[in-house]
Each structure stands twice: as structure tokens, then as C-alpha cells.
């Protein structure tokens, strides 16, 4: 997997425990890198499983699950965008199936996928375009470190680790 991502500036690459998470590689990316990464994964014969978002205090964390037909090695790309301006470039030009997944994520969380050929409501009615059911109330919303853990860090630029700083200190044994 790491060869497939050669040349892409990542924020953090970590290896996760497959037994407990079902995921092998966890890659944090800046929004502008996602399209280039999707192209690389397409070349490396990955297929897209789904796209979803999680609502955190730090912003919306958009997850892309990829897997291959031949090897069971799930890769999760993670893109953190701010709550004020949740814009991520669309990967629908590479993985055509992403179009619907992105529209669904826009419906549920209000994340905008720039470049999606048809970014109109998919599952939610067209009349309720400003209603995003999975956006949490300020009371229910948590910090990223209260829900996720990083896993075994392979490389990092430091910006994502900072979000997890406290959690890592508290649960050092998990890393």
C-alpha cells in the first residue's frame, strides 16, 4: 500500500490492528491531496467501498474505505475539514461510484464535494436541502481523540498527532 502512495504528501500514516478495527492502513490527508491519491489507488487496483463523515469538534472527518479484490488490506483515507467551510474535492471523476456516496454524505452532514458532477440531494428530499440529520448537537459532539485512536504511526508531519496528544498520553499502551 505504501508504494501506491509514493509521492503523495500525507499528514499521517498509521497501521491499525486488523483484528479489532478491520482496517489495516489509516492515512490522514489534506483535502487537496485526495484526488491525486484516489488516482494512485485506482492504478493500484483498489476499489471504493464507501465514503462517510463523522462529526467532531475539530470538524468533519471524511472517511474513504478502499479494498482490493485480491488482497484483504483495507485502507482508510481520512480528510479533516473545518465545520465552517467543509469542502473536499470530489473523487467521482476517478471512482464513478463515489458520486452517490458523496451526495449521500452531503445530505447527511453537509460536506460539499467540489467537482461532483451532480451534487443534488440523493436520499433526502429536495425540499429539505438544508437539513443534515447526522450533524450532532454541540452537546453530543465530541473531540476526535475521544472516539478514535491512531494506531501504530509509520510517518507523520505532526499536525494530526497534536489532535490526539492527550489521548495518546492517557492510553499509551494502545499505541
Amino acid at each position: 500500500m505504501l508504494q501506491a502512495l509514493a509521492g503523495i504528501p500525507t499528514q499521517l500514516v498509521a497501521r491499525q490492528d486488523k483484528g479489532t478495527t478491520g482496517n489495516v492502513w489509516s492515512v490522514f490527508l489534506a483535502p487537496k491531496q485526495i484526488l491525486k491519491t484516489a488516482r494512485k489507488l485506482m492504478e493500484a487496483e483498489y476499489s471504493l467501498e464507501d465514503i462517510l463523515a463523522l462529526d467532531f469538534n475539530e470538524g468533519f472527518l471524511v472517511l474513504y474505505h478502499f479494498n482490493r479484490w485480491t488482497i484483504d488490506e483495507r485502507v482508510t483515507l481520512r480528510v479533516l475539514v473545518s465545520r465552517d467551510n467543509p469542502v473536499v474535492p470530489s473523487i467521482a471523476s476517478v471512482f464513478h461510484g463515489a458520486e452517490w456516496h458523496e451526495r449521500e454524505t452531503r445530505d447527511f452532514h453537509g460536506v460539499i464535494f467540489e467537482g461532483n458532477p451532480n451534487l443534488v440531494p440523493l436520499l433526502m428530499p429536495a425540499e429539505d436541502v438544508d437539513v443534515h440529520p447526522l450533524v450532532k448537537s454541540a452537546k453530543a459532539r465530541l473531540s476526535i481523540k475521544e472516539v478514535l485512536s491512531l494506531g501504530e504511526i509509520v510517518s507523520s508531519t505532526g499536525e494530526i498527532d497534536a489532535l490526539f496528544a492527550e489521548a495518546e498520553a492517557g492510553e499509551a499502551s494502545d499505541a
Partner: protein
Amino acid sequence: MSAYQNMDQMTGDFYTQKFEAAKQDGTLIINMGPQHPSTHGVLRIVIEVDGEYIVRAEPVLGYLHRMHEKMGEVQTWGGFIPNMGRVDYGHAMAWNWAYVGAVEKLMGIEVPERAQYLRVIMTELNRLTSHLLWWGAYILDLGAFTPIMYAFDDREMLLDILQRPSASRLTYSNFRVGGVQMDMDDKCIELIKAFIPHFRDRLPMYHDLVTENIILRRRIEDIGIIDQDMCRRYGCTGPVLRGAGVAYDVRRSEPYSVYDRFDFEIPTQDSACSAGRYHVRIAEMEQSLRIIEQALEQLPGAEGSHIVDKAPKPAMKPPVGEAYFAVEGARGKIGIYVASDGTKTPYRVKLRAPGFSNMNAFAEAATGTILADAVAILGSLDLIIPELDR
């Protein structure tokens, strides 16, 4: 009122109008659905036709949207299990399994061997009911009424069997974190053992009656090509992918539970057309029978009971973290992602429905075919609309 709203109902709603903006000269725009009988529920497809030929198609989803993912965020972990029976009424057991499997992963629960076998037997029986439902309904879509009667005759026997250990006939929700709700009684096992030879005898009749029928073959052969490249681009899985010649089955590729102990084949077809997908499903029914047979043989020797000791209560609190678990459903890869903040309600539940990705490929596959073929393609995707819309 939003930007997407259209008050002038005479010229169609927002989706029709948007679709119409790119209309060519001399073509006609029609709505297939949301009440069209071949859409098996309420699916709508806006189609631009030039004479009989489809120029463009755009599915409009959401008529059966129930926001299961939100329901997951307001219920207890255990309280969400019944939702799984309602996402996909065709193969409810597989959805049950995907969800409890994800939670078990999160909690690090080892499921007893006997429970694993019971899950395998019930899920495979449920796969047969799903394929039988598809088979009957597909042929009905294509204009033959009799086969669905035969399919439902056999399916009825399966429902009677599944009713015993699950106490329901369609929307099963008998999986529990750590096992299954009830053990199978001897009578149930007896019924399954009697069903297998019965169904093996029936399959040749299905083939004689339908598979080799020249009318059916003309309707489905070389219609609706979804090849490997399309499958990768759209994320198609299940019989759609196997019908394109890729032997990808989650039971084999990402082995879970005790599936690695059974000897079974992954049927594939290279034609990538509707007929390919048809043959894959028919062949899968035979493989399911093989799996059930082997599971029944190994069941008496399996250790443990039908559920783990001190099984978690519905208001369980899984540790903080995330988990992704995938199983092979009748329509393809069912994937469930759960994130826990350590409380008794999930922080996020994401349902990956195989039909959603398969349906996504429809517009491209249907372009250039005639309108009647669109029905043949839709049916070959084996759609369950509540699963698409979730």
C-alpha cells in the same frame, strides 16, 4: 423554500427539470417509477428516450429512506439490531451478522463455535430465500408468471424452517452480540436435512423450465454489460462482480467466522451481462446447499452454546474505537462501520449497502439499450429498495 424546490408541478419536479435541461431535440423524457412494478418498491428512474432507445438515465432515490444511520445514533447498541432486519428484507441475516460482527470486533468478543455454525446455516438458508425471491420476481418482470409460484413454494418451506430458530419469517433480527438468540431444535435440523435433497431435485426443473428457455435467453444474453472496469469504478460487488468474471466473495477473500472450514466454489461467469449474473445466482444456490450440508455435519461437534457466556446486555458499552466488518450478502459486500465513544449509544453507524453501488452502475449499463431491456437490467441487479435508500 429551498433552491431545489419547484412550484410548477405541471412540468415535473426538481429532478425532472434538472434532467430536462440537457435534453436533446426529438427525444422524450419519461419517469419510470416510483410506482413501476419492475422497480420492486419505490425506485424512480428518469429516462430520456429516442424512440425506443435510452439516451440517458438517472435514478432518483430516497422514496424509502428511513435514516437508519440516525436511528443508530439514538438507540442502544443492542436496540439497533432489529433495524438490520428492515434494511434488507431479502437477506436480513447477513445484515444482522455484519452489525453484530462489527460490534464484536470492537468489544473483542470471541463467538462460540456452535453459534458460528448456527449463523452460517441460517445465513445460507436466508441467502436461498433471497435468491429464490429474486429468481421468481425477475422472471415475472420479464413476463412469465408461473416460475414465481414454484419459487415461492420452495421459499415457503425455507421460511417455515427459519421461523423456528428466529421467530420471524422475513425481517429477522435474531443475532445477538456474542451469538444468536435461540438454539436450533432437533425438528428444525430435521427439516433442513429434508429440504436439501428436495431442493436439489427441484433445481433441474428450474433450469428446464426457465434457464434454457429461448425467450428468456434472448431477453438477457448480452444485455446490460457491466464489466470488470465498470465494477471497479462503481464499486460493484456480489453476483454483479462475479458475473463479470472476478471470483471475489467476502466469504473467501476476507474470511470470517468458520467459512474457511467449508469446501465450496465461487461461481463466476465471464459474459458480464444479465445472463451472467443470472447464472451466478443459480449456481450460488447449489453452493449454499453444500455449505449448509457441511455445517450440519460439523455442528454436533462444535463447542460452546448458541451464545457466549455473560453475553452483553442491549445497553452494553463497547470500548472507545472504531471497527469495520464486511460480510457477503445475497447482493454483495455488506460493510458496517461503527465508532464508539464508550457510551451505550453508538457515535456513528455507517451502512454500506451492496445494492447502492450496484445500482449506481445502472445508468451507464442502460445507456444505448432499449426501454424493455432496462427492466431486464434492473432485475438482474437484484435490487432491494430499502437497502438502497436505507
